[in-house]
């Protein structure tokens, strides 16, 4: 019952050998750096001061805005600094630095929720919000807001287990090692969203997980496992909705516009932990892999642990790293500073050696049109690139550049090695700047006209 989706590419999934590696725990670092913004939306303000003793799981940052998620201490210890620190997006973000006392003294709030609370959608949403859960696939949209804003609109819940990015195995290992918890988490999400049916889309390269979850009684819980074709970007939200339900999210719209809400696998698992174990989002399974890595692994990492520490504790590098990526190879962010901390949405840390490089000094478009075939959004990357290079904002708008989801398929497939995705990120910014400019102008004119009208009235 899969529906046709457009575009896509087939990179070597490189899941092996880390897909067979059980999740292990690495020693905790002496210090964690916890950014006050690990989500889309309003950044948090620190609730602690330098010198304060904090406990494991204690809330240390909060914002009152609806689109936001609180942050918690991922270790117990002492706050030694509150200062801006570089994050994975390359921004300086206000961060709380905690010196680890290695005691893991839990906060009083780290207790399972009472059973009756788990019967009410409102209360589950409140627990999810309090636990600081965000979209763990990397988009980091606050989950509680996604749930509550979908009430009355959403009739279908989709759990995203595509994990279509090469190398990453953190969702797969979670499915294999915590199938029951995961299914319970999905049930909680269904309850919170007020629906009784969920689709769990899993790519066929995770056959073992598909069979296991079916064996564990997914069907009886109202969860239908949907085996998906291995194709990038199968796990892109709009593409996944199209494949599973044949609905197309309108341009600029949210999935709720077509009655869908999509949650990542690890998000569902985090919901389970928050509700049944009282654990907020302070721990993440991270796949450490790439051609420069000695031994690919899946490890549990506390939020705020520096990349440097994770690489060190997982066996280090076999070759000199040339590029370090937080996230997948298709959409992840290249890092230049090893002190950048892992956050809630960090699914993988990749280190590539130089031989991965295929960029050329002088990229030439040969008009092969493969970018058009690959684009999941039915765009025309070849022409968008042309007009972006010319700086023609009107044409970029006409070609619907804002629909671009930056999945990277066009750049991946381009034989001329053009920097397409990069150009579209810049192009989108150009269009948005123009739109903001026009809006400001229109508002100024409106204000002027109103002022003139008032004068006439007098």
């Amino acid at each position, binding site marked *: 019952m899969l529906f046709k989706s*457009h575009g896509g590419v087939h*990179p070597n999934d490189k899941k092996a050998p880390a897909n067979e590696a059980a999740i292990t725990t690495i020693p905790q670092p002496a210090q964690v750096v916890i950014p006050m913004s690990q989500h889309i939306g309003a950044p948090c303000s620190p609730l602690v001061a330098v010198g304060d003793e904090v406990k494991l799981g204690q809330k240390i940052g909060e914002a009152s805005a609806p689109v936001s998620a609180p942050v918690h201490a991922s270790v117990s210890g002492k706050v030694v600094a509150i200062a801006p620190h570089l994050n994975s997006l*390359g921004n300086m973000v206000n961060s709380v630095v905690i010196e680890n006392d290695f005691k893991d003294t839990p906060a009083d709030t780290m207790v399972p929720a009472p059973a009756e609370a788990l019967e009410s959608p409102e209360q589950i949403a409140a627990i999810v919000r309090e636990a600081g859960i965000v979209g763990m696939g990397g988009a980091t949209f606050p989950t509680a807001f996604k749930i509550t804003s979908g009430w009355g609109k959403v009739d279908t819940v989709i759990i995203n287990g595509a994990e279509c990015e*090469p190398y990453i195995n953190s969702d797969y290992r979670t499915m294999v090692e915590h199938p029951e918890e995961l299914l319970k988490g999905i049930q909680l999400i269904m309850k919170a969203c007020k629906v009784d049916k969920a689709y769990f889309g899993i790519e066929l390269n995770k056959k073992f997980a598909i069979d296991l979850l079916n064996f564990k009684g997914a069907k009886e819980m109202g969860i239908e496992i949907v085996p998906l074709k291995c194709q990038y970007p199968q796990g892109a939200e709009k593409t996944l909705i199209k494949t599973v339900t*044949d*609905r*197309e*999210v*309108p*341009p600029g*719209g949210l999935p709720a*516009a*077509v*009655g869908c809400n999509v949650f990542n696998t690890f998000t569902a698992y985090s919901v389970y932990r928050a509700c049944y174990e009282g654990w907020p989002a302070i721990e993440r399974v991270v796949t450490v892999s790439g051609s420069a890595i000695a031994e690919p692994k899946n490890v549990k990492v506390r939020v705020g642990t520096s990349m440097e520490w994770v690489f060190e504790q997982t066996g280090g590098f076999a070759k*000199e*790293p*040339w*590029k*370090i*990526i937080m*996230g997948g*190879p*298709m*959409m*992840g*962010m*290249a*890092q*230049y500073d090893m002190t950048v901390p892992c956050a809630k949405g960090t699914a993988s840390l990749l280190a*590539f050696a130089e031989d*991965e490089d*295929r*960029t050329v*000094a*002088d990229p*030439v478009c*040969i*008009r*092969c*049109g493969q970018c*058009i075939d690959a684009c*999941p*959004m*039915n765009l*025309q990357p*070849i*022409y968008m690139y042309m007009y972006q290079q010319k700086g023609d904002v009107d044409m970029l708008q006409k*070609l*619907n550049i804002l*629909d671009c989801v*930056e999945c*990277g398929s066009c750049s*991946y497939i*381009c*034989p*001329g*090695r053009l920097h397409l*995705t*990069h150009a579209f*990120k810049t192009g989108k910014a150009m269009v948005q700047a123009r739109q903001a400019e026009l809006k400001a102008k229109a508002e100024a004119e409106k204000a002027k006209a109103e002022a003139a009208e008032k004068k006439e009235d007098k």
Partner: protein
Amino acid sequence: MNEERKLIVSSSPHIRTPRGTQQIMLDVIIALLPALVAAVIFFGIKPLIVTAVSVVSCEVFEIGYRKLLKKGDSYTDLSAVVTGMLLAYCLPYTFPWWAVIIGAFFSIVLVKQLFGGLGKNIWNPALAGRAFLLISYAVLMTTWIEADAPDAATFATPLASLHAGNLAPDSIWNMFIGNIGGSFGEVSALALLLGGAWLVYRKVISLRIPVAYIGTVAVLTLIFSRGNNHFMWMLQNVLSGGLLLGAIFMATDYCTSPVTPNGQLIFGVGCGLLTVLIRYFGGYPEGVSFAILIMNCCTWLIDQHTAPRRFGVVGKRSKKEGAK
């Protein structure tokens, strides 16, 4: 500490397909080889020499031009080799070497490089070169000498018979394997189809343009057939002349054909229509090269009007939502 190397920071994606321009061109070259083998079988060693002269001169002009104008080296992309092979393939094997070089110059320098090089030319360089040679050296281009008769006994190609309104005397089998007169790279339908299958298998081209092109020619010649044997007329039209070489290798040339799926279908149908029109009513017996060259001019226009449907605007449900 000071010898610590810096990490590379760049926009995602961080991996790219192993298949670059060079690999694609190499696939095209491989796909062109069966036709060369067939030519050697039917015409002897001479087609090989013509091809060699054409390829070498195309590469020399390509490298020379870019050196002269201090542009980056582009010979590694192998596109000039492809042009050289295609140009040679649409010549008679008796074509003199000096004229081949003139054709190569026209193709590479005037048609390709002056427009900006790979990916920026408007017309297919090999076809434009052929058209140029056909107009400039009409006699040399249309003198077909039978391979078995070295005493320069000329004979008519199937296409010439068709142009005169008669079925060609050649058997369909001979036309299929290539045991007929004509430009040496065009004669063997079998070899060209093999090459086409390789290109489709390797995903270098899609079937859209070749099928639309050949299909249009087949349908039109079947409907408007001359003589009594309609089917034979259609089959001979499809197998003769440069149709298969044109439809599989020339009309699918990336930079001179549309990039949108629907655009490619329109392009193929247009090529077929023009080919039949020229074959039926034109002065030349063959219409493939001019048909493709004319359609090349429309590529931009076709692309502009065949943009793929925007994601999320036609679906039943999303349409309803969008209207709100």
